[in-house]
């Protein structure tokens, strides 16, 4: 050690640390399910023809979560898209997809429904936990064919998943937890939409 000055040692250490951390940055691409694993029970459907409009942002929504030395990417657009279709189909007498809010006029729908993701929550600190909490907020806007809002609600879906099996990886736990939060959100949204009588005046 007598051959090296303190400055040289400090530079060497800094170089080693930097090399180590740069090499550690990793992107975790998650493979999320593309459909919801649930069913919607409704005895009497809302007697309207609904146009479901999903923006490009919503269709391709990907949640990116920065963590120490990397980030997790959760592509949840497909599950949101399919879950929305299933839910609106179950709630309304008739449902079609509209590619733009303006298209509602030509497709003779009664209302246009447009969902948007407000927030996704995953905890920052995972290492010492034996469970995984997740949350998602989706805003549902129902408008008339002229684009005037009729009913708006922001619904939170959440999950609390215990680490059931020791061999379950952290990534699997996160995926499952987020999937359950999304499904919980759809279940709550479905109940909110069908239990309210917001649509009564439209058929008059």
């Amino acid at each position, binding site marked *: 050690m007598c051959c090296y000055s303190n400055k040289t040692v400090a530079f060497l250490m800094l170089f080693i640390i930097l090399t180590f951390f740069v090499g550690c940055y990793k992107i975790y691409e998650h493979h999320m399910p593309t459909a919801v694993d649930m069913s919607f029970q409704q005895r009497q459907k809302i007697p309207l023809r609904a146009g479901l409009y999903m923006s490009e942002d919503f269709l391709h929504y990907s949640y990116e979560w920065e963590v120490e030395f990397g980030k997790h990417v959760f592509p949840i657009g497909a599950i949101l898209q399919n879950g929305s279709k299933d839910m609106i189909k179950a709630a309304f007498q008739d449902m079609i997809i509209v590619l733009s809010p303006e298209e509602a006029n030509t497709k003779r729908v009664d209302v246009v429904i447009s969902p948007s993701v407000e927030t996704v929550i995953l905890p920052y600190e995972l290492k010492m936990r034996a469970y995984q909490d997740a949350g998602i907020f989706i805003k549902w806007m129902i408008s008339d064919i002229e684009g005037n809002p009729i009913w708006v609600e922001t619904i939170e879906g959440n999950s609390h998943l215990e680490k059931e099996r020791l061999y379950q990886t952290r990534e699997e736990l996160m995926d499952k937890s987020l999937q359950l939060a999304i499904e919980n959100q759809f279940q709550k949204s479905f109940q909110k939409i069908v239990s309210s009588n*917001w649509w009564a005046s439209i058929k008059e």
Partner: protein
Amino acid sequence: MKRILLFLIMVIFLSGCATIQLPELTVKPASQYRLSQNKEGLVISVDPFLEKKRVEELFGTDLLSKGILPVLVVVENNSNSSTFYLQKEQSSLEMAEGESETGIASAGRSLTYQRPDKATTTLFYVSPLIVAGIWQSFENEREAITKNMIKNELRERTLNPGESQHGLIYFRLTDKTRVEDIAAVNLKVLNIQSKENILFSFTVE
């Protein structure tokens, strides 16, 4: 030297275990706030968190110094038949003296900038998720602060007669703006039946 090194390692290690306890947001009935207005039976009150100490108590950090102004909004629909929709993303702050850029941000989307006209600067609402990326802090603390901000955020919804809601709207302050220069908080509400917008403008003293 060894002792200092050991101490540093201990500090780094233990700081990862630290968690902060944040208090619950307490809310009074809308009529009990100083900045309160009633239009068409809809009562809206606002309470801007202008004092550093108050912000730190609720959020565990000084959001103001990070360019974020939280404003508590309490809404009560006391009308007989009207349904209202407070459009959070249309909310703005009016400044006493004009500046240049403003930004509106919402979760998962990028900032879009626009220039205000004349001598007023309009500062728009900002999502807590974007706020979370603004500063670097320890992970536990960041998690607690972000979750607390998200939990207390005002959620967009239609309010039927007899219903109420409350929550915080987060405004982004630009580098050039000071809290003391905020002249008014503006909120836009849509009457669902009449399809007319109602502007609630609260002068901040």
